[in-house]
């Protein structure tokens, strides 16, 4: 097997990546995960360590399988998680991810979720909080194969910029070759509401605490219902404390 060449900026899936940092960890191993028919599993991925990290998960869900994947991407100078998920008949895939960046961090989640057979559902919730000159990217393609009727997919992508110097990129993308499918997607980039911050401050909360409280609420949905919800929320809260 030949080692793939380092991607360039022209490669859509790497358009916003830190290519210099990527070169240090290239090639990226493909981590195969297969969930057998009818089985339910969950995984939390916390990208740890301050250097460059790139991972690529290939997830295959057989008929009726379900997989709950949660991601916290907050520590790496360049943190990239690529996820290819292939859904069999009636499979269920959940992705909840938070990306929390500051300084010059470059954080990205790149997904390609393919509904191969009828009746599968996928739900992706991505929340990014970006301070300083950090960059947070979500590139997410949902593909519905011919014959995969009854597909139900949702992408909810939101980013909060704490400084005008931070950057959020978001590209939800749909490729549908079947009838009778439901594919919802929403995308928003915003700033913390000044009126709400004043309201909280007027009750005695210092500005940092007020921001932290609002950001905690902003990212909460990414981890809601996860088996490790409490641990992930606590880790994220620690990191938010450093961002505000």
């Amino acid at each position, binding site marked *: 097997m030949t080692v793939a060449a380092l991607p360039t900026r022209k490669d859509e899936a790497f358009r916003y990546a830190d290519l210099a940092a990527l070169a240090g960890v290239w090639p990226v191993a493909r981590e195969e995960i297969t969930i057998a028919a009818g089985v339910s599993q969950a995984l939390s991925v916390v990208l740890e360590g301050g250097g460059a990290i790139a991972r690529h998960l290939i997830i295959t869900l057989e008929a009726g399988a379900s997989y709950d994947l949660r991601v916290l991407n907050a520590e790496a100078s360049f943190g990239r998680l690529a996820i290819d998920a292939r859904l069999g008949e009636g499979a269920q895939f959940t992705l909840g991810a938070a990306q929390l960046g500051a300084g010059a961090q470059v954080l990205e989640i790149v997904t390609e979720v393919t509904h191969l057979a009828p009746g599968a559902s996928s739900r992706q919730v991505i929340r990014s909080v970006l301070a300083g000159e950090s960059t947070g990217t979500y590139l997410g393609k949902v593909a519905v194969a011919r014959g995969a009727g009854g597909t139900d997919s949702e992408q909810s992508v939101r980013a909060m910029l704490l400084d005008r110097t931070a950057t959020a990129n978001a590209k939800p993308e749909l490729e549908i070759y079947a009838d009778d499918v439901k594919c919802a997607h929403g995308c928003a980039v915003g700033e913390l509401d000044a*009126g*709400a911050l004043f309201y*909280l*401050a*007027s009750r005695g909360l210092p500005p940092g*605490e007020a921001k932290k409280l609002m950001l905690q609420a902003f990212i*909460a949905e990414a981890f809601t219902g996860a088996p490790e919800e409490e641990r992930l929320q606590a880790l994220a809260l620690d990191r938010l404390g450093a961002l505000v």
Partner: protein
Amino acid sequence: MSAMLKINNLSATVAEKPILKGLSLSINAGEIHAIMGPNGAGKSTLGYVLGGRPGYEVTGGSVEFNGDDLLALAPHERAALGLFLGFQYPVEIPGVSFVQFLRESANAQRGARGEAPLSGGEFLKLAREKAALLKMDMEMLKRPVNVGFSGGEKKRAEMVQMGILDPRLAILDETDSGLDIDALRIVGDGINAIMRRPDKAVLLITHYQRLLDYVKPDFVHVLADGRIVKTGGPELAHQLEEQGYEAVA
């Protein structure tokens, strides 16, 4: 006796437009004052300037609160000194529960004053007591801040917050708007129960006489074009209601 709140010749602009134009007012502990005035007179601006809202720029004058220079302090520091601002339009904050936010706020204030924090149990007991005072279901306080609340529920929730935070001075901006007759009485009773004490004071900002039937003011001021143009007793509010601002002020 020195005043609790001493506003001296205060001027302020919003988006560079002068709104307050040399406003002076003194409030002593134990007193309830009402400020009435036509739309656009600067009533809400006064509340926001005293609360320290960004975008409301003080261009002249001074404000002392128990001897401290209020205008030099950040909003949360003003709260820790015992200032409470009741909002005309309380803000909805999805995802943040009242209970969590109020406990953190109360403990931030206590910390700033060198007091020990309230435990979860102590806080809930206090919250339950104040919710009952305002006839508010405690379950509502477990919900996100003001989200899905009716206008009247928001105003009652403001008063529950005031009860929990136990301020020395409450500035209540049109707390009576959006209330039906029963809610008006509950809110009025709540203000009296929480704030009518010798060591506390209230500044009620209102358009109408009706709240003043429940919360009897010691002084009524008329605010017009950024200044206090007339001061009197409770009878002034009745006179305004009957004759209108133009005739009286």
